[in-house]
């Protein structure tokens, strides 16, 4: 008796220890990042203001990476598939928005809405046409990886075939005059899209936290077997994940089109940053994906102040490796994820 209670006390103690340790770790991370930021701000050639400017640009890029990559992370969390074709959803979204906007003259706002819809449909379609059959066959993660590669190649070439190689831009909101807030230039479209991203991410968070379907998705990512054994329709949850992922990626691509040219390979070019962001945040964790992506966005933009601009992607990738060496599961990755 007594020693069992003692045991449970010990257990409790250990748990609290663990929790405090986590807090300390998290705190030291944040402290480290802040300190680094301050130092960089002080050192960099274009002064603190230039630094903050770069950070704000990075934030925008990071948010777009986040909503584009979220689907990738969710899909990985729930079904263990790392979908190399995810970037193509973004391209699809951007191209749809561009075509409707320029060819049919539909207002961009509407076309983006349509793009989101089509992105979701594409996600649903790929789940049903390709990934679910593969899961039925119990195909290994590796093969799934290769299927994704093939899919990406095919999709990209289809885009090239249809829209051609040259890059395009929307008919609206192309050039705006910047609003200066505390010496930092912000474009209206930038502010709007950032707010939109935050709203979408918050919405996703609430969905996963509050709705029973959202909780089901988290349950599936915890333990698919137990999920089905407690009455959750795993396939339905996965379909939802794919729809959300496709839609968000399409939105991301469409928003990206506001700040750069729309082209047949824009999604593919973004994929590398998405991989970096999602992975270093901790594969399959929503918050991790967001933090990681924003980190990547900021680092790439800030690095230009110090390093040759050609190497700005290198810094993001180096950051990825560095963090995985320190914390092999990524910033927020939990020890044993799915499977």
């Amino acid at each position, binding site marked *: 008796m007594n020693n069992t209670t003692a045991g449970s006390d010990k257990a409790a103690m250990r748990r609290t220890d663990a929790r405090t340790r986590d807090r300390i770790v998290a705190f030291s991370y944040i402290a480290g990042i802040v300190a680094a930021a301050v130092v960089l701000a002080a050192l960099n050639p274009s002064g603190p203001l230039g630094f903050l400017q770069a950070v704000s640009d990075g934030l925008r890029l990071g948010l777009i990476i986040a909503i584009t990559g979220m689907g990738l992370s969710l899909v990985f969390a729930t079904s263990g598939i790392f979908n190399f074709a995810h970037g193509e959803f973004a391209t699809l979204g951007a191209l749809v928005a561009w075509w409707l906007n320029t060819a049919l003259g539909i207002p961009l706002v509407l076309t983006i809405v349509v793009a989101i819809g089509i992105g979701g449909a594409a996600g649903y379609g790929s789940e049903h046409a390709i990934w679910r059959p593969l899961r*039925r066959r119990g195909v290994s*993660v590796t093969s799934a990886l290769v299927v994704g590669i093939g899919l990406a190649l*095919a999709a990209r070439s289809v885009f090239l075939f249809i829209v051609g190689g040259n890059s395009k831009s929307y008919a609206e909101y192309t050039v705006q005059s910047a609003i200066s807030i505390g010496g930092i230039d912000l474009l209206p479209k930038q502010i709007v899209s950032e707010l939109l991203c935050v709203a979408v991410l918050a919405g996703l968070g609430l969905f996963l936290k509050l709705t029973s379907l959202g909780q089901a998705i988290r349950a599936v990512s915890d333990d698919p077997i137990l999920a089905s054994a407690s009455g959750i329709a795993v396939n339905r949850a996965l379909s939802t994940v794919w729809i959300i992922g496709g839609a968000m990626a399409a939105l991301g691509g469409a928003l990206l089109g506001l700040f750069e040219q729309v082209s047949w390979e824009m999604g593919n070019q973004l994929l590398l940053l998405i991989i970096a962001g999602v992975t270093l945040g901790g594969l399959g964790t929503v918050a991790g994906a967001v933090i990681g992506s924003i980190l990547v966005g900021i680092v790439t933009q800030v690095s230009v102040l110090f390093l040759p601009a050609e190497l700005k992607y290198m810094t993001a990738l180096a950051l990825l490796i560095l963090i995985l060496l320190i914390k092999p599961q990524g910033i927020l990755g939990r020890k044993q994820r799915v499977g």
Partner: protein
Amino acid sequence: MDFASIISDSLRAAISPTAAAYALGAIGLNLQFGYAGLINLGIAGSMAAGAYGLAMVVLSGGPFWAGLLVGLVCAGVFSLLVALPTVRLRADYLAMTTIATAEILRLVLRSSWARPVTGGVNGLQRFADSFYALNPFGVTSYAIGPVIIPGRTLWLMLVAWILVVIVAIGLWAIVKSPWGRTVIAIREDEDLARALGKNTFNVKVQVMVLGGMCTALAGSVLVTDQQNVNPDSFGTALTFVVYAIVIMGGAGRIVSPIVGAVLFWLLLALSDGILRSLADLSALSGGWFGQDQVGAVRYVLVGVSLILVIVFRPQGFFAGRLPHLRKKVTAS
């Protein structure tokens, strides 16, 4: 374009030095991915290391063979640096870190401040003259059956395929050895291997380095064919194509990479030829399908066929064994 020439073009592509180079790369990858089950998405990096090693040495006055050796060493070191921290990581994290390291190498090689050494975006040229000086065939073209090959290409082709055979036999030798048994054991059940006293970490690192060296040879052949090494030809696309080759051939068997490479380039050239003749036809009949769309369609076919292989012949065209990673896609 008549059909006969399409066939002969495809056959040439299938036995071209490029195909041989890809076969070498696939052999290296097959050791890492097919036998040991390590998802290394960074082989473009080790290929680049080999290629640049060769080019730099020769251009700085070294003999060609020395360049090859240095290339091997460079790739070995690169792979070692990648392996030491990453092979402990979980399969998917390994994939991500390796893809990242390869891209980092490419970006550094092409950056302007590396230009004095690597030639930056222009890369390096004319480092294989001493090799082609040994060419016994001259510049005239030779006909092997229906295939016509310029003597210069023929020379490299000969050497390249001899290399392929040597490497393949070498790999066969070590895979059949006790060491090879451990490698396969790691793929199938690493814990068991450890329980039987095998130092799986060391073996995995060895696999990474050895495979990296094979791919270094691949890189060297690839750039010797064109006497030009360019950073952007070592992007992720290259890695993916080599994966496609290994998968098509069927991972985990000695011949599969060779079969895969030949098959891949055969199909690529075949589709290209057919599509181009289609385009010519359409040009006569109102141009519903332009020459400028051939490239795109061809890559659509590559992508789709890659998917189809996985779905319908998951063991590759020649039944091999895909690595059983402990983590499966959750079946429902």
